[in-house]
């Protein structure tokens, strides 16, 4: 690595400094309480996957270049040169961490590994060593925000074709649009993923609840966050914020995408609209009696996988259980404390990297498989696209024999038509 590249990377490193990052870099005592916290270590048993070890990969560079003793006594803190080998280590650490933050529940100080890994991801971008596909996907999202008119027609045609499917699930009133788009003055803006599975069930439930809603032009997923690029993350987020402001909605409802929800909820700042996950919205509809769901629609034990970014990191925990207790008489939690639900192993962009990470994802999530099996459930419900994909892959790989379902789809499938609903 030449000195200019190194200087630029160190500048990027410095740009990440906040009070929190400084606390995290200065506080760890390497006490080892976090050893069993990470699903990757718990499944594969290799030291490099212990949370504190991941921290040290960042901390060694920090000590070398940002602490005085790193210059005159580097060995005491194992301070390390930022070179090509260090970049490889950063990649290994950052892209084996799903950012689930389960280790924060173990650490006596609450050190946030995901935040420290965000330094690694930014340095990888600076060194052009990040997974190229994630950057490409982020760029596509940003570009879509810039040239909405270019793809608008195609999007509207696609949506029109989905309307028949929506009506099959829930008969709309005469003259009512099954999937309203670009509707100024709607109460709720629904931000879906690119795919019918993310739009059809949600639309049916919104229509059943009599919601005054509209579908976003943009997909919810934020590849900028996956690749750890703060600028792109913000640009991708701003597309939705600007759309919500233009349509004057009161609420932005994010589909079943953990990262999209957390970014929207925690990064959008003070806005005239509130941000909700679709799970929260569905729980509200049930609580307010706006929709009725059939408790006998699903047979067998149902369990729920908490998507880390929605539950432990986003606070949507009770709502999913509230819905599931309305969907089944046999709901069983996987753990007595949802903070300890194992990560599925697919977050942090790993699922988006597809086949490249499949082998690692299967090996690193063995503990999740054991947790699901121990629940004895026949239906494994979740509320995140990445989790759903990863759990489905695990289901196939380990032959778990469960039916992996989106929670929102279960709600849509169990909708009780108005005429059959008891008065």
């Amino acid at each position, binding site marked *: 690595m030449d000195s200019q590249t190194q200087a630029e990377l160190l500048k990027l490193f410095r740009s990440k*400094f906040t009070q*929190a990052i400084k606390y995290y870099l*200065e506080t*760890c005592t390497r006490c080892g309480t976090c050893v069993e916290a990470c699903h990757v270590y718990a499944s594969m048993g290799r030291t490099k996957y212990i949370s504190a070890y991941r921290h040290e990969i960042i901390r060694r560079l920090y000590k070398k270049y940002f602490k005085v003793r790193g210059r005159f006594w580097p060995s*005491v803190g*194992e301070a390390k040169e930022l070179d090509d080998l260090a970049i490889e280590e950063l990649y290994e650490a950052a892209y084996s961490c799903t950012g689930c933050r389960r280790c924060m*529940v173990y650490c006596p100080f*609450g050190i946030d590994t995901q935040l420290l890994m965000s330094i690694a991801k930014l340095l990888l971008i600076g060194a052009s060593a990040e997974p190229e596909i994630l950057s490409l996907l982020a760029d596509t999202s940003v570009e879509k925000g810039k040239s909405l008119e270019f793809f608008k027609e195609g999007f509207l045609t696609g949506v029109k074709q989905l309307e028949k499917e929506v009506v099959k699930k829930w008969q709309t009133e005469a003259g009512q649009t099954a999937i309203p788009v670009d509707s100024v003055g709607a109460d709720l803006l629904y931000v879906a993923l690119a795919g019918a599975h993310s739009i059809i069930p949600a639309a049916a439930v919104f229509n059943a609840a009599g919601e005054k809603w509209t579908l976003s032009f943009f997909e919810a997923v934020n590849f900028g966050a996956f690749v750890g690029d703060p600028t792109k993350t913000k640009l991708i987020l701003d597309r939705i914020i600007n759309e919500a402001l233009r349509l004057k909605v009161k609420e932005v409802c994010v589909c079943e995408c953990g990262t999209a929800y957390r970014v929207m909820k925690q*990064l959008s700042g003070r806005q005239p609209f509130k941000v909700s996950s679709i799970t929260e919205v569905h729980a509200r509809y049930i609580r307010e009696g706006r929709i009725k769901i059939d408790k006998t629609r699903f047979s067998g034990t149902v369990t729920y996988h908490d998507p880390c970014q929605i539950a432990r990191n986003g606070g949507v925990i*009770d709502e999913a259980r509230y819905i599931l207790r309305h969907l089944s008489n046999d709901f069983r939690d996987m753990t007595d404390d949802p903070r300890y639900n194992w990560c599925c192993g697919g977050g942090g962009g790993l699922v988006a990297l597809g086949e490249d990470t499949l082998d690692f994802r299967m090996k690193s999530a063995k503990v999740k498989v054991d947790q699901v099996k121990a629940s004895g459930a026949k239906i494994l419900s979740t509320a995140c696209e990445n989790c759903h994909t990863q759990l489905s892959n695990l289901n196939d790989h380990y032959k778990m024999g469960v039916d992996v379902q989106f929670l929102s789809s279960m709600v849509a499938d169990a909708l009780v038509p108005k005429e059959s609903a008891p008065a």
Partner: protein
Amino acid sequence: MQSVIYFILVPMVYIACAIFLVGTILRVVKIWQYPKQPTTLQIFPEKKPKWLWTLYDTFMFPTVLRHKPLLWIFLMAFHISLVLLLIGHLELIAEFGIFQIVPHEVFIGNGYVGLTLAVCLLYFLFRRMISPVKDLSIPEDYYLLILLFLIVIFGSEMDWARRWYEYGEMTVEDYRTYLYSLLVFKPDLPYSTTFSGHSFMLVLHVFFANLFLMLFPFSQLMHAILSLPVNKLRRG
């Protein structure tokens, strides 16, 4: 030799205290000059009042209790003993009525506080020699534990000698004369502190304690200060 002893017991103490105070304050102030994290770093479900739970996390180490109960026992014993040691040293400067709520002879703990600390430090040290904690540890971790052990062992031996073996050459009054004189910037070294048979223990104890104070702001020992704000981030 006497000038070396004098340097350790007087000027070096001032230098160490100055580095400790100025260094710690500067480090904290420098950290506070960085912007706050734009997003919350909270973990859910949340519990209120958040500040009270932050204090609980900071002083009771509930996560360690849940996941490493044996480590928790030693950590609690260690940190409680540290507080008692601090009280003991304050009482070696002057008499404080408030500390005599539970009547005791100075130094507090009848020698067992130091013994507890020494045992805890040995546990921490040997724990680091076994995987996986060994794989996580860096030289700094061992050096600091060894340094602390040296401080504790020489400090405690003075206490043990007085308490358990009726060694009477260095008295509490001698320590008070020495420490109070440092506090009022009129250094006075009683004869026993520099010429008695056990004075080398005092010199070594103070020397290692000086090193500890000088290293504090630049090492992971800062966790003693940063633990509270960092725990607050998790509680939101």
